[in-house]
């Protein structure tokens, strides 16, 4: 790990001022940052520790029925908050399908949004990576790339964003509150992460020194609570990143879908909301045929970036699975294996 200057500001304003120095990075729990620093992937000159900044660890119910989640709220505190889990069950399920219990006890909301890709070439300073070192090239293009992106990738970068949490959040219209030198601004989560294009080193719309202070879900996002699921296919049952994942929320009126919310994870450099698939489902009765049409629409632009053509059909099937489970109704209690396609689903026929 490189040497760094360590500062511990007492307010958001002090933190933003401290991080104005080039080469600064914010430290929340550090579960991703310290790992990257140990590997020499990130070498910040200054760590601005948010541990003492008040107000960032609060989960606050909003008058419109929505919720404001402080950037330093721990994953497990949010997932096990009874009010939150009841209103936004797919978000709780996604959180509990991520990482391990130890990591969820430490890792934060803001850190989750800003976690870096798990592309092995990004993690290996001996490999060429345009994200780590602009212009260096991309060893993933001709390397081990079966888990890489199938949507929104470029010749410069085929990495994916590894978050589970962000997938239902983007489906439900979450908004990111950002504090910077020029004051506070808000960005919809859907517009927060950047696609790689020719600048894969730029991963979000945050300007240098800007700080995520909270993530908000609007009240209407709770209207999907009765039919909301997250499904995540992993290469082992627990404690693994998604091969592909999907969040589905349905608002059913008189047996028909009044509104659908759908997003995919593990397929692109950002959580991938699919409005074209949501549109397919509007006004129709839930069922295998409609769900398959929605999945076809969701992946219509998908292209393999390497040995990963299988992920396109897999994503379609995981989306159909998430829709099937969502239509059956959110369970009273999360399954023992949250988001697992292998969890038993009493009363749901998954194979037609």
């Amino acid at each position: 790990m490189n040497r760094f200057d360590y500062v511990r500001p007492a307010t958001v304003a002090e933190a933003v001022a401290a991080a104005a120095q080039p080469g600064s990075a914010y430290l929340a729990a550090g579960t991703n940052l310290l790992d990257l620093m140990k590997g020499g992937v990130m070498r910040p000159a200054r760590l601005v520790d948010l541990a003492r900044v008040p107000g960032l660890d609060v989960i606050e119910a909003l008058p419109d029925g929505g919720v404001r989640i402080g950037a330093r709220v721990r994953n497990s505190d949010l997932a096990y908050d009874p009010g939150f889990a009841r209103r936004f069950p797919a978000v709780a399920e996604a959180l509990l399908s991520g990482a391990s219990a130890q990591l969820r006890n430490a890792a934060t909301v803001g850190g989750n949004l800003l976690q870096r890709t798990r592309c092995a070439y990004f993690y290996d300073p001996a490999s060429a990576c345009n994200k780590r070192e602009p212009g260096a090239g991309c060893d993933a293009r001709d390397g081990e790339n079966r888990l890489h992106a199938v949507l929104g990738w470029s010749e410069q970068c085929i990495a994916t964003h590894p978050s589970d949490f962000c997938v239902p959040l983007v489906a439900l219209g979450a908004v990111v509150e950002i504090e910077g030198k020029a004051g506070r601004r808000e960005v919809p989560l859907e517009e927060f992460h950047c696609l790689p294009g020719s600048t894969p080193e730029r991963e979000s719309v945050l300007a240098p020194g800007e700080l995520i202070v909270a993530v908000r879900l609007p009240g209407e996002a709770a209207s999907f609570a009765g039919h909301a699921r997250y499904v995540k296919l992993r290469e082992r049952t627990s404690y693994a990143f998604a091969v592909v994942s999907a969040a589905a929320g349905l608002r059913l009126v008189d047996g028909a879908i009044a509104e659908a919310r759908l997003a995919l994870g593990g397929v692109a450099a950002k959580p991938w909301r699919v409005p074209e698939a949501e549109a397919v489902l509007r006004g129709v009765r839930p069922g295998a045929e409609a769900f398959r049409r929605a999945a076809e629409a969701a992946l219509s632009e998908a292209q393999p970036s390497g040995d990963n053509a299988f992920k396109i059909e897999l994503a379609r099937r995981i989306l159909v699975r998430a829709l099937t489970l969502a239509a059956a109704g959110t369970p009273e209690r999360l399954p023992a294996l949250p988001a697992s396609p292998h969890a038993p689903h009493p009363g749901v026929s998954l194979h037609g």
Partner: protein
Amino acid sequence: MSLSITLTVNAVPRTIALDDPRVTLLDLLRERLDLTGTKKGCDRGQCGACTVLVDGRRVNSCLALAASLDGAEVLTIEGLAEGEVPHPVQAAFIEHDAFQCGFCTPGQIMSAVGLIREAQAGDDPERVREAMSGNLCRCGAYKGITEAVLEAQRRMVANAEEKAA
């Protein structure tokens, strides 16, 4: 730079001068406080051997900067037994043969103590396995570990009920 922090480690308040902010909680425990029960496995948050409780919650001590935890309460494997009497989780690990080489065991036990405090798994072995997935055991003692966690939890609940009665 020099930075002074205070930590309560196994119920003992300590003031520690850090000459370098890079020190993780794991390295602080092992190298500066001679508490070597907490193990360094991968040092990257993947194996769980370094699990300790910070303010009552299980975390990977290899991925926490000591400086950032100023003021926290830390419980390690050395602080678990009451004198010569092992903690119920320690006793259950012995009874259920929940280890072979023992390297991952302090992390497994601290993780199990955290799991029981979280009170989310109940008596469902599948939920216990899921909640213990952050602790790897290369000897493959998982069957015994799951049984030990369930048994310790039963005993701790029974003890608490006895005390309350």
